[in-house]
Protein backbone atom coordinates (compact mmCIF):
# COMPACT_ATOMS: atom_id res chain seq x y z
CA UNK A 1 0.00 0.00 0.00
CA UNK A 2 1.19 3.48 -0.86
CA UNK A 3 1.27 5.61 2.27
CA UNK A 4 1.56 9.36 2.14
CA UNK A 5 4.38 10.74 4.27
CA UNK A 6 4.08 14.16 5.86
CA UNK A 7 5.63 15.76 8.95
CA UNK A 8 3.31 16.64 11.83
CA UNK A 9 4.79 20.16 11.84
CA UNK A 10 3.21 20.67 8.41
CA UNK A 11 -0.20 19.82 9.82
CA UNK A 12 0.45 22.38 12.53
CA UNK A 13 1.36 25.01 9.95
CA UNK A 14 -1.91 24.37 8.12
CA UNK A 15 -3.86 24.49 11.37
CA UNK A 16 -2.32 27.86 12.20
CA UNK A 17 -3.27 29.24 8.78
CA UNK A 18 -6.85 28.16 9.29
CA UNK A 19 -6.88 29.67 12.78
CA UNK A 20 -5.36 32.89 11.47
CA UNK A 21 -8.20 33.53 9.06
CA UNK A 22 -10.92 32.40 11.46
CA UNK A 23 -9.77 34.01 14.68
CA UNK A 24 -8.45 37.52 15.19
CA UNK A 25 -7.24 36.66 18.69
CA UNK A 26 -4.64 34.10 17.57
CA UNK A 27 -1.05 35.36 17.69
CA UNK A 28 2.17 33.48 16.99
CA UNK A 29 5.67 33.85 18.44
CA UNK A 30 8.80 32.16 17.22
CA UNK A 31 12.32 31.87 18.65
CA UNK A 32 14.31 32.14 15.42
CA UNK A 33 13.01 28.81 14.08
CA UNK A 34 10.19 30.29 12.09
CA UNK A 35 10.55 28.19 8.93
CA UNK A 36 11.46 24.97 10.77
CA UNK A 37 8.46 25.13 13.08
CA UNK A 38 6.16 26.19 10.20
CA UNK A 39 5.19 29.30 12.15
CA UNK A 40 6.47 31.05 9.04
CA UNK A 41 3.37 30.12 7.09
CA UNK A 42 1.32 32.16 9.53
CA UNK A 43 3.88 34.97 9.53
CA UNK A 44 3.59 35.35 5.77
CA UNK A 45 -0.17 35.72 5.85
CA UNK A 46 -0.68 37.53 9.16
CA UNK A 47 2.51 39.53 9.77
CA UNK A 48 0.81 41.89 12.21
CA UNK A 49 0.05 39.02 14.56
CA UNK A 50 3.44 37.38 14.35
CA UNK A 51 6.27 38.18 16.76
CA UNK A 52 9.88 37.36 16.06
CA UNK A 53 11.53 36.74 19.43
CA UNK A 54 15.08 35.85 18.42
CA UNK A 55 16.91 32.98 20.10
CA UNK A 56 15.26 33.77 23.46
CA UNK A 57 12.98 30.93 24.43
CA UNK A 58 12.56 32.06 28.03
CA UNK A 59 11.63 35.58 26.97
CA UNK A 60 9.29 34.15 24.35
CA UNK A 61 7.32 32.19 26.97
CA UNK A 62 6.94 35.28 29.15
CA UNK A 63 5.94 37.47 26.22
CA UNK A 64 3.39 34.85 25.18
CA UNK A 65 2.05 34.92 28.75
CA UNK A 66 1.67 38.69 28.60
CA UNK A 67 -0.13 38.47 25.26
CA UNK A 68 -2.46 35.84 26.72
CA UNK A 69 -3.21 38.22 29.59
CA UNK A 70 -4.54 40.72 27.03
CA UNK A 71 -6.96 38.12 25.69
CA UNK A 72 -4.87 36.59 22.92
CA UNK A 73 -4.42 32.92 22.18
CA UNK A 74 -0.66 32.82 21.92
CA UNK A 75 1.24 30.05 20.10
CA UNK A 76 4.91 30.00 21.17
CA UNK A 77 6.97 27.97 18.73
CA UNK A 78 10.44 26.47 18.86
CA UNK A 79 12.10 23.04 19.02
CA UNK A 80 10.87 20.81 21.85
CA UNK A 81 14.31 20.65 23.45
CA UNK A 82 14.39 24.43 23.86
CA UNK A 83 10.73 24.86 24.77
CA UNK A 84 10.19 22.13 27.34
CA UNK A 85 13.80 22.03 28.45
CA UNK A 86 15.37 25.45 28.43
CA UNK A 87 12.21 27.40 29.23
CA UNK A 88 10.68 24.95 31.71
CA UNK A 89 10.62 27.33 34.67
CA UNK A 90 9.09 30.09 32.53
CA UNK A 91 6.41 27.65 31.40
CA UNK A 92 5.90 26.60 35.01
CA UNK A 93 5.65 30.02 36.65
CA UNK A 94 4.66 32.44 33.89
CA UNK A 95 2.21 30.13 32.10
CA UNK A 96 1.01 27.02 33.96
CA UNK A 97 0.79 28.53 37.45
CA UNK A 98 -1.39 31.31 36.03
CA UNK A 99 -3.39 28.87 33.85
CA UNK A 100 -2.79 31.10 30.84
CA UNK A 101 -4.00 30.52 27.33
CA UNK A 102 -0.58 29.85 25.84
CA UNK A 103 -0.02 27.02 23.39
CA UNK A 104 3.56 25.83 23.52
CA UNK A 105 4.57 24.21 20.28
CA UNK A 106 7.65 21.99 20.41
CA UNK A 107 8.60 20.68 17.02
CA UNK A 108 11.52 18.33 16.39
CA UNK A 109 10.47 15.97 19.16
CA UNK A 110 12.12 12.57 19.34
CA UNK A 111 15.11 10.96 17.67
CA UNK A 112 13.49 11.23 14.24
CA UNK A 113 15.14 14.67 14.20
CA UNK A 114 18.00 12.54 12.91
CA UNK A 115 21.34 14.00 11.90
CA UNK A 116 21.32 17.06 14.20
CA UNK A 117 21.84 14.70 17.12
CA UNK A 118 21.08 14.54 20.84
CA UNK A 119 21.01 18.26 21.72
CA UNK A 120 18.19 18.74 19.23
CA UNK A 121 16.38 15.45 19.81
CA UNK A 122 13.91 16.19 22.59
CA UNK A 123 13.01 12.96 24.38
CA UNK A 124 11.84 14.31 27.73
CA UNK A 125 9.05 16.81 26.94
CA UNK A 126 6.09 14.61 27.86
CA UNK A 127 7.66 13.96 31.27
CA UNK A 128 8.55 17.58 31.88
CA UNK A 129 5.26 19.01 30.69
CA UNK A 130 2.86 16.55 32.27
CA UNK A 131 4.43 17.24 35.66
CA UNK A 132 2.90 20.73 35.51
CA UNK A 133 -0.57 21.05 37.05
CA UNK A 134 -3.21 22.01 34.50
CA UNK A 135 -1.01 21.43 31.46
CA UNK A 136 -2.54 19.57 28.53
CA UNK A 137 -0.04 17.50 26.53
CA UNK A 138 -0.84 16.45 22.97
CA UNK A 139 1.27 14.22 20.72
CA UNK A 140 -0.42 13.89 17.32
CA UNK A 141 0.28 10.74 15.33
CA UNK A 142 0.24 12.30 11.87
CA UNK A 143 -0.15 15.58 9.99
CA UNK A 144 -3.93 15.32 9.73
CA UNK A 145 -4.26 14.84 13.46
CA UNK A 146 -1.71 17.60 14.09
CA UNK A 147 -3.87 20.08 12.21
CA UNK A 148 -6.92 19.11 14.23
CA UNK A 149 -4.90 19.22 17.45
CA UNK A 150 -3.73 22.75 16.62
CA UNK A 151 -7.28 23.96 16.18
CA UNK A 152 -8.46 22.07 19.26
CA UNK A 153 -5.60 23.58 21.28
CA UNK A 154 -6.77 27.09 20.34
CA UNK A 155 -10.31 26.26 21.35
CA UNK A 156 -9.18 24.76 24.65
CA UNK A 157 -9.00 27.24 27.53
CA UNK A 158 -5.63 26.98 29.27
CA UNK A 159 -2.04 25.95 28.61
CA UNK A 160 -1.30 23.26 26.04
CA UNK A 161 1.95 21.59 24.97
CA UNK A 162 1.89 20.33 21.40
CA UNK A 163 4.64 17.85 20.51
CA UNK A 164 5.48 17.66 16.85
CA UNK A 165 8.09 16.01 14.67
CA UNK A 166 10.51 17.04 11.96
CA UNK A 167 10.48 14.08 9.60
CA UNK A 168 7.69 12.88 7.36
CA UNK A 169 5.52 10.26 9.02
CA UNK A 170 2.76 8.10 7.50
CA UNK A 171 -0.64 9.73 7.31
CA UNK A 172 -2.91 7.17 8.97
CA UNK A 173 -5.91 9.17 10.15
CA UNK A 174 -8.62 10.65 7.96
CA UNK A 175 -10.07 14.13 7.75
CA UNK A 176 -13.40 12.85 9.02
CA UNK A 177 -11.97 11.14 12.12
CA UNK A 178 -13.01 12.90 15.29
CA UNK A 179 -10.22 14.42 17.38
CA UNK A 180 -11.03 15.38 20.92
CA UNK A 181 -8.49 16.44 23.53
CA UNK A 182 -8.30 13.80 26.24
CA UNK A 183 -10.23 11.20 24.27
CA UNK A 184 -8.05 8.31 23.10
CA UNK A 185 -9.03 6.51 19.92
CA UNK A 186 -9.18 2.75 19.66
CA UNK A 187 -7.84 2.00 16.18
CA UNK A 188 -7.96 -1.80 16.34
CA UNK A 189 -9.88 -3.97 18.69
CA UNK A 190 -8.19 -6.96 20.28
CA UNK A 191 -8.29 -9.20 23.31
CA UNK A 192 -4.80 -10.59 24.05
CA UNK A 193 -3.05 -7.32 24.83
CA UNK A 194 -3.29 -3.59 24.26
CA UNK A 195 -0.68 -1.52 22.50
CA UNK A 196 -0.98 2.07 23.62
CA UNK A 197 1.00 4.47 21.47
CA UNK A 198 1.38 8.14 20.62
CA UNK A 199 3.06 10.11 17.85
CA UNK A 200 4.75 8.18 15.07
CA UNK A 201 4.69 5.03 17.19
CA UNK A 202 0.98 4.72 16.46
CA UNK A 203 1.92 3.71 12.92
CA UNK A 204 4.50 1.25 14.24
CA UNK A 205 1.85 -0.16 16.58
CA UNK A 206 -0.54 -0.70 13.66
CA UNK A 207 2.20 -2.55 11.77
CA UNK A 208 2.91 -4.64 14.87
CA UNK A 209 -0.79 -5.41 15.09
CA UNK A 210 -0.73 -6.92 11.58
CA UNK A 211 2.36 -9.04 12.31
CA UNK A 212 0.84 -10.32 15.56
CA UNK A 213 -2.42 -11.10 13.82
CA UNK A 214 -0.61 -13.51 11.52
CA UNK A 215 0.56 -15.33 14.63
CA UNK A 216 -2.99 -15.40 16.01
CA UNK A 217 -2.31 -12.77 18.61
CA UNK A 218 -5.09 -10.26 18.85
CA UNK A 219 -3.78 -6.81 19.79
CA UNK A 220 -5.89 -3.79 20.61
CA UNK A 221 -4.26 -0.59 19.32
CA UNK A 222 -4.95 2.67 21.06
CA UNK A 223 -3.84 6.09 19.89
CA UNK A 224 -3.26 7.99 23.13
CA UNK A 225 -2.68 11.35 21.46
CA UNK A 226 -3.31 13.16 24.73
CA UNK A 227 -1.00 11.80 27.44
CA UNK A 228 -2.50 14.46 29.73
CA UNK A 229 -5.30 14.58 30.71
CA UNK A 230 -5.22 10.83 30.21
CA UNK A 231 -8.31 8.97 29.02
CA UNK A 232 -8.71 6.73 32.06
CA UNK A 233 -11.86 5.10 30.79
CA UNK A 234 -10.32 3.71 27.60
CA UNK A 235 -7.02 2.79 29.27
CA UNK A 236 -8.49 1.04 32.31
CA UNK A 237 -10.94 -0.83 30.10
CA UNK A 238 -8.04 -1.97 27.92
CA UNK A 239 -6.20 -3.22 30.99
CA UNK A 240 -9.26 -5.04 32.28
CA UNK A 241 -10.30 -6.58 28.98
CA UNK A 242 -6.91 -7.51 27.53
CA UNK A 243 -4.87 -8.06 30.71
CA UNK A 244 -1.55 -6.81 29.32
CA UNK A 245 -0.21 -3.53 27.96
CA UNK A 246 2.68 -2.41 25.79
CA UNK A 247 3.24 1.32 25.55
CA UNK A 248 5.16 2.75 22.61
CA UNK A 249 6.49 6.29 22.30
CA UNK A 250 9.34 8.06 20.56
CA UNK A 251 10.36 9.47 23.91
CA UNK A 252 12.19 8.48 27.06
CA UNK A 253 10.52 5.67 29.00
CA UNK A 254 11.23 7.66 32.16
CA UNK A 255 7.98 9.39 33.06
CA UNK A 256 6.62 9.75 29.56
CA UNK A 257 3.34 8.57 28.07
CA UNK A 258 4.12 5.02 29.25
CA UNK A 259 4.73 6.37 32.72
CA UNK A 260 1.36 8.10 32.66
CA UNK A 261 -0.37 4.87 31.61
CA UNK A 262 1.51 2.91 34.23
CA UNK A 263 0.54 5.32 37.04
CA UNK A 264 -3.09 4.89 36.10
CA UNK A 265 -3.11 1.16 35.47
CA UNK A 266 -1.11 0.24 38.58
CA UNK A 267 -3.72 2.05 40.63
CA UNK A 268 -6.92 1.03 38.85
CA UNK A 269 -6.24 -2.38 37.32
CA UNK A 270 -2.67 -3.67 37.59
CA UNK A 271 -1.58 -5.81 34.62
CA UNK A 272 1.85 -6.69 33.20
CA UNK A 273 3.34 -3.85 31.13
CA UNK A 274 6.26 -3.39 28.76
CA UNK A 275 7.62 -0.04 27.65
CA UNK A 276 8.85 0.60 24.14
CA UNK A 277 10.73 3.91 24.01
CA UNK A 278 14.14 5.45 24.48
CA UNK A 279 15.66 3.48 27.35
CA UNK A 280 17.08 6.19 29.62
CA UNK A 281 19.79 7.39 27.27
CA UNK A 282 20.44 10.35 24.98
CA UNK A 283 19.82 10.25 21.25
CA UNK A 284 22.41 10.11 18.48
CA UNK A 285 23.07 11.55 15.06
CA UNK A 286 22.04 9.49 12.10
CA UNK A 287 19.39 8.60 9.61
CA UNK A 288 16.03 8.46 11.45
CA UNK A 289 15.16 5.04 10.05
CA UNK A 290 18.43 3.52 11.24
CA UNK A 291 18.07 5.27 14.58
CA UNK A 292 14.62 3.75 15.09
CA UNK A 293 16.17 0.31 14.73
CA UNK A 294 19.08 1.18 16.97
CA UNK A 295 16.83 2.59 19.69
CA UNK A 296 14.29 -0.23 19.51
CA UNK A 297 11.31 1.80 18.29
CA UNK A 298 10.22 -0.28 15.29
CA UNK A 299 7.15 -2.45 14.81
CA UNK A 300 9.41 -5.48 15.36
CA UNK A 301 10.36 -4.14 18.76
CA UNK A 302 6.70 -3.70 19.64
CA UNK A 303 6.01 -7.28 18.51
CA UNK A 304 8.79 -8.55 20.76
CA UNK A 305 7.47 -6.54 23.70
CA UNK A 306 3.96 -7.85 22.99
CA UNK A 307 5.07 -11.46 23.14
CA UNK A 308 7.03 -10.81 26.28
CA UNK A 309 4.11 -9.16 28.05
CA UNK A 310 1.73 -11.94 27.03
CA UNK A 311 4.17 -14.44 28.54
CA UNK A 312 3.90 -12.55 31.81
CA UNK A 313 0.12 -12.81 31.94
CA UNK A 314 -1.15 -15.16 34.64
Amino acid at each position, binding site marked *: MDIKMKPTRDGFGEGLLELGSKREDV*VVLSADLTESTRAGWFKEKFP*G*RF*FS*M*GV*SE*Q*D*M*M*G*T*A*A*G*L*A*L*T*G*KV*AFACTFGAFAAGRAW*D*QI*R*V*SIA*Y*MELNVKIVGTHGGISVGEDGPTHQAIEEITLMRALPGMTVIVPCDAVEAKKATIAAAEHEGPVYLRLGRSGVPVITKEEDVFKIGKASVLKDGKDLSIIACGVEVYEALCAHDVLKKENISARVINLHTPKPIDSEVIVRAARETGAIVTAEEHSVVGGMGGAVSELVSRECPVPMEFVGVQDRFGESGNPKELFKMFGLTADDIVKAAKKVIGRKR
Partner: protein
Amino acid sequence: MGKKPDIRELKNIAKEIRIEILKMLTCAGSGHTGGSLSMVEILVGLYFYKFRCDPARPLCDTRDIFILSKGHGCPALYAVLSRMGFFGKEELGTLRKVGTRLQGHPQKGLPGVEISSGSLGQGLSIANGFALGSRLNKDPRRVYCLMGDGELDEGQVWEAALTASHYKLDSVCGIIDYNKFQIDGRTSEVKNLEPLKAKWQAFGWEVLEIDGHEVKEVMEAYDKAETIKGKPTLVLAHTVKGKGSVLFENKNKYHGVTPSKEELEKAIKEIGAKEI
Protein backbone atom coordinates in the same frame (compact mmCIF):
# COMPACT_ATOMS: atom_id res chain seq x y z
CA MET B 1 -4.95 60.55 38.58
CA GLY B 2 -3.56 63.65 36.86
CA LYS B 3 -3.29 66.34 39.53
CA LYS B 4 -0.17 66.08 41.65
CA PRO B 5 -1.05 65.12 45.20
CA ASP B 6 0.45 66.80 48.21
CA ILE B 7 4.01 65.53 48.73
CA ARG B 8 3.64 65.62 52.50
CA GLU B 9 0.58 63.44 52.27
CA LEU B 10 2.41 60.91 50.12
CA LYS B 11 5.33 60.86 52.51
CA ASN B 12 2.90 60.15 55.29
CA ILE B 13 1.36 57.34 53.31
CA ALA B 14 4.84 55.91 52.76
CA LYS B 15 5.43 55.95 56.50
CA GLU B 16 2.18 54.15 57.15
CA ILE B 17 2.88 51.59 54.43
CA ARG B 18 6.27 50.87 55.99
CA ILE B 19 4.68 50.28 59.38
CA GLU B 20 2.07 48.05 57.79
CA ILE B 21 4.78 46.02 56.04
CA LEU B 22 6.69 45.50 59.26
CA LYS B 23 3.55 44.45 61.12
CA MET B 24 2.67 41.95 58.41
CA LEU B 25 6.14 40.47 58.35
CA THR B 26 6.40 40.19 62.11
CA CYS B 27 3.02 38.52 62.24
CA ALA B 28 3.95 36.12 59.43
CA GLY B 29 7.30 35.30 61.03
CA SER B 30 8.96 34.94 57.64
CA GLY B 31 9.35 37.01 54.50
CA HIS B 32 11.56 39.64 52.92
CA THR B 33 12.01 42.75 54.99
CA GLY B 34 14.84 44.64 53.28
CA GLY B 35 13.55 44.52 49.72
CA SER B 36 9.98 45.36 50.76
CA LEU B 37 11.08 48.49 52.60
CA SER B 38 13.31 49.71 49.78
CA MET B 39 10.47 49.83 47.21
CA VAL B 40 7.88 51.76 49.20
CA GLU B 41 8.19 55.19 47.54
CA ILE B 42 8.42 53.56 44.11
CA LEU B 43 4.95 52.12 44.72
CA VAL B 44 3.50 55.11 46.53
CA GLY B 45 4.57 57.51 43.76
CA LEU B 46 2.93 55.22 41.24
CA TYR B 47 -0.29 54.05 42.86
CA PHE B 48 -1.22 57.29 44.60
CA TYR B 49 -0.47 59.46 41.59
CA LYS B 50 0.02 58.09 38.13
CA PHE B 51 -1.59 54.71 37.98
CA ARG B 52 -4.98 54.27 36.35
CA CYS B 53 -6.96 51.59 38.14
CA ASP B 54 -10.30 50.98 39.79
CA PRO B 55 -10.10 48.93 42.98
CA ALA B 56 -13.79 48.12 42.63
CA ARG B 57 -13.16 46.72 39.12
CA PRO B 58 -9.61 45.36 39.28
CA LEU B 59 -9.72 43.93 35.75
CA CYS B 60 -11.33 46.90 33.99
CA ASP B 61 -10.14 47.44 30.42
CA THR B 62 -8.83 50.94 30.94
CA ARG B 63 -6.44 50.07 33.73
CA ASP B 64 -2.69 50.43 33.65
CA ILE B 65 -0.66 47.33 34.44
CA PHE B 66 1.77 46.92 37.31
CA ILE B 67 3.97 43.85 37.33
CA LEU B 68 6.01 42.98 40.38
CA SER B 69 8.88 41.02 38.91
CA LYS B 70 10.74 40.98 42.24
CA GLY B 71 7.94 38.92 43.74
CA HIS B 72 9.57 38.66 47.17
CA GLY B 73 8.77 42.35 47.71
CA CYS B 74 5.05 41.54 47.80
CA PRO B 75 4.39 42.70 51.38
CA ALA B 76 4.88 46.25 50.11
CA LEU B 77 2.52 45.65 47.20
CA TYR B 78 -0.09 44.02 49.45
CA ALA B 79 0.02 46.96 51.85
CA VAL B 80 -0.41 49.45 48.99
CA LEU B 81 -3.20 47.50 47.30
CA SER B 82 -5.06 47.17 50.56
CA ARG B 83 -4.74 50.88 51.22
CA MET B 84 -6.01 51.58 47.70
CA GLY B 85 -9.07 49.49 48.52
CA PHE B 86 -8.45 46.36 46.43
CA PHE B 87 -9.07 44.27 49.55
CA GLY B 88 -9.59 44.83 53.24
CA LYS B 89 -6.84 45.74 55.65
CA GLU B 90 -7.71 42.80 57.91
CA GLU B 91 -6.53 40.42 55.19
CA LEU B 92 -2.95 41.70 55.58
CA GLY B 93 -2.72 39.67 58.78
CA THR B 94 -3.12 36.45 56.80
CA LEU B 95 0.16 36.86 54.90
CA ARG B 96 1.82 33.47 54.34
CA LYS B 97 -0.79 31.57 56.39
CA VAL B 98 -2.62 28.47 55.16
CA GLY B 99 -5.56 29.34 52.93
CA THR B 100 -4.53 32.95 52.36
CA ARG B 101 -4.76 34.90 49.11
CA LEU B 102 -1.60 36.68 50.26
CA GLN B 103 0.85 33.98 49.26
CA GLY B 104 4.53 34.23 50.19
CA HIS B 105 5.11 35.37 46.62
CA PRO B 106 2.32 37.02 44.61
CA GLN B 107 -0.32 34.87 43.04
CA LYS B 108 -2.56 36.04 40.22
CA GLY B 109 -6.13 36.16 41.45
CA LEU B 110 -5.65 38.50 44.37
CA PRO B 111 -7.38 41.72 43.25
CA GLY B 112 -4.74 44.11 41.91
CA VAL B 113 -2.13 41.42 41.35
CA GLU B 114 -1.69 40.95 37.60
CA ILE B 115 0.76 38.07 37.58
CA SER B 116 2.24 35.36 39.73
CA SER B 117 5.91 35.91 40.33
CA GLY B 118 8.69 34.81 42.61
CA SER B 119 11.03 33.01 40.26
CA LEU B 120 13.16 35.99 39.32
CA GLY B 121 13.71 37.55 35.93
CA GLN B 122 10.35 36.76 34.37
CA GLY B 123 8.32 39.96 34.82
CA LEU B 124 9.73 42.15 32.06
CA SER B 125 8.94 39.57 29.36
CA ILE B 126 5.34 39.47 30.57
CA ALA B 127 5.23 43.27 30.63
CA ASN B 128 6.35 43.28 26.99
CA GLY B 129 3.63 40.78 26.12
CA PHE B 130 1.07 43.00 27.83
CA ALA B 131 2.34 45.97 25.82
CA LEU B 132 2.29 44.09 22.50
CA GLY B 133 -1.20 42.75 23.14
CA SER B 134 -2.44 46.18 24.19
CA ARG B 135 -0.97 47.64 21.02
CA LEU B 136 -2.88 45.09 18.93
CA ASN B 137 -6.03 45.88 20.91
CA LYS B 138 -5.42 49.62 20.37
CA ASP B 139 -5.47 50.08 24.10
CA PRO B 140 -3.35 53.03 25.27
CA ARG B 141 -2.48 51.59 28.67
CA ARG B 142 0.92 51.88 30.30
CA VAL B 143 2.78 48.89 31.67
CA TYR B 144 5.05 49.22 34.69
CA CYS B 145 7.44 46.50 35.77
CA LEU B 146 9.40 46.63 39.01
CA MET B 147 12.59 44.60 39.15
CA GLY B 148 15.16 44.05 41.84
CA ASP B 149 18.85 44.61 41.27
CA GLY B 150 19.92 41.07 42.16
CA GLU B 151 17.29 39.93 39.69
CA LEU B 152 19.29 41.52 36.88
CA ASP B 153 21.70 38.58 37.11
CA GLU B 154 19.02 36.61 35.26
CA GLY B 155 19.67 36.41 31.53
CA GLN B 156 15.98 36.58 30.71
CA VAL B 157 15.87 40.21 31.86
CA TRP B 158 18.31 41.12 29.12
CA GLU B 159 16.46 39.07 26.53
CA ALA B 160 13.36 41.05 27.47
CA ALA B 161 15.32 44.32 27.40
CA LEU B 162 16.17 43.57 23.76
CA THR B 163 12.57 42.69 22.96
CA ALA B 164 11.17 45.92 24.42
CA SER B 165 13.55 48.06 22.46
CA HIS B 166 13.23 45.99 19.26
CA TYR B 167 9.47 46.48 19.32
CA LYS B 168 9.79 50.12 20.44
CA LEU B 169 7.54 49.49 23.41
CA ASP B 170 7.27 53.03 24.71
CA SER B 171 4.31 52.03 26.89
CA VAL B 172 6.70 49.94 28.98
CA CYS B 173 8.28 51.57 32.01
CA GLY B 174 10.78 49.37 33.80
CA ILE B 175 11.82 50.31 37.32
CA ILE B 176 14.83 49.00 39.19
CA ASP B 177 14.85 49.03 42.96
CA TYR B 178 18.61 49.52 43.11
CA ASN B 179 19.26 48.88 46.79
CA LYS B 180 22.73 47.42 46.05
CA PHE B 181 22.21 44.17 47.96
CA GLN B 182 21.15 40.62 47.15
CA ILE B 183 20.94 37.53 49.36
CA ASP B 184 24.62 36.70 49.25
CA GLY B 185 25.79 40.27 49.86
CA ARG B 186 26.52 43.46 47.96
CA THR B 187 25.61 43.31 44.29
CA SER B 188 29.06 44.72 43.54
CA GLU B 189 30.61 41.66 45.19
CA VAL B 190 28.18 38.91 44.21
CA LYS B 191 28.11 39.86 40.54
CA ASN B 192 28.90 43.41 39.55
CA LEU B 193 26.13 45.15 37.60
CA GLU B 194 27.94 48.38 36.83
CA PRO B 195 27.91 50.38 34.66
CA LEU B 196 24.19 49.71 34.93
CA LYS B 197 22.81 52.89 33.39
CA ALA B 198 25.08 52.52 30.37
CA LYS B 199 23.99 48.91 29.95
CA TRP B 200 20.31 49.82 29.67
CA GLN B 201 21.12 52.73 27.39
CA ALA B 202 23.14 50.40 25.20
CA PHE B 203 20.11 48.11 25.05
CA GLY B 204 18.12 50.99 23.59
CA TRP B 205 16.31 52.27 26.67
CA GLU B 206 15.84 55.82 27.92
CA VAL B 207 17.20 55.79 31.47
CA LEU B 208 16.02 58.12 34.24
CA GLU B 209 18.21 57.95 37.33
CA ILE B 210 16.55 59.05 40.56
CA ASP B 211 16.60 58.86 44.33
CA GLY B 212 14.01 56.14 44.83
CA HIS B 213 13.02 57.45 48.24
CA GLU B 214 12.18 60.97 47.08
CA VAL B 215 8.53 60.66 46.17
CA LYS B 216 8.67 63.86 44.12
CA GLU B 217 11.48 62.50 41.96
CA VAL B 218 9.62 59.21 41.58
CA MET B 219 6.47 60.96 40.34
CA GLU B 220 8.41 63.17 37.97
CA ALA B 221 10.14 60.12 36.52
CA TYR B 222 6.79 58.48 35.75
CA ASP B 223 5.62 61.75 34.13
CA LYS B 224 8.76 61.99 32.04
CA ALA B 225 8.60 58.32 31.04
CA GLU B 226 5.20 58.90 29.53
CA THR B 227 6.60 61.52 27.18
CA ILE B 228 9.39 59.31 25.80
CA LYS B 229 8.32 57.92 22.43
CA GLY B 230 9.75 55.17 20.26
CA LYS B 231 11.60 53.35 23.03
CA PRO B 232 10.99 51.95 26.50
CA THR B 233 12.01 53.83 29.63
CA LEU B 234 13.87 52.56 32.64
CA VAL B 235 13.65 54.30 35.99
CA LEU B 236 16.86 53.48 37.81
CA ALA B 237 15.85 54.17 41.39
CA HIS B 238 18.67 54.31 43.90
CA THR B 239 17.33 53.00 47.17
CA VAL B 240 18.42 51.77 50.57
CA LYS B 241 17.72 48.21 51.53
CA GLY B 242 15.66 48.08 54.71
CA LYS B 243 14.83 51.82 54.40
CA GLY B 244 12.95 53.35 57.32
CA SER B 245 14.73 52.16 60.43
CA VAL B 246 18.39 52.00 61.46
CA LEU B 247 17.62 48.48 62.60
CA PHE B 248 17.35 47.26 59.02
CA GLU B 249 18.97 49.83 56.74
CA ASN B 250 21.79 48.29 54.72
CA LYS B 251 21.76 45.27 57.03
CA ASN B 252 21.57 42.44 54.60
CA LYS B 253 20.66 39.94 57.29
CA TYR B 254 17.13 41.31 56.91
CA HIS B 255 16.90 40.29 53.27
CA GLY B 256 14.88 37.25 54.30
CA VAL B 257 14.50 37.73 58.04
CA THR B 258 11.56 39.43 59.72
CA PRO B 259 11.60 41.77 62.72
CA SER B 260 11.07 40.41 66.24
CA LYS B 261 8.26 41.93 68.29
CA GLU B 262 10.74 44.18 70.09
CA GLU B 263 12.31 45.29 66.83
CA LEU B 264 8.87 45.97 65.41
CA GLU B 265 7.97 48.26 68.30
CA LYS B 266 11.26 50.14 68.06
CA ALA B 267 10.95 50.51 64.29
CA ILE B 268 7.37 51.77 64.48
CA LYS B 269 8.43 54.43 66.98
CA GLU B 270 11.40 55.43 64.84
CA ILE B 271 9.39 55.66 61.63
CA GLY B 272 6.54 57.51 63.35
CA ALA B 273 8.86 60.08 64.87
CA LYS B 274 10.61 60.87 61.57
CA GLU B 275 10.07 64.39 60.31
CA ILE B 276 8.56 64.86 56.91
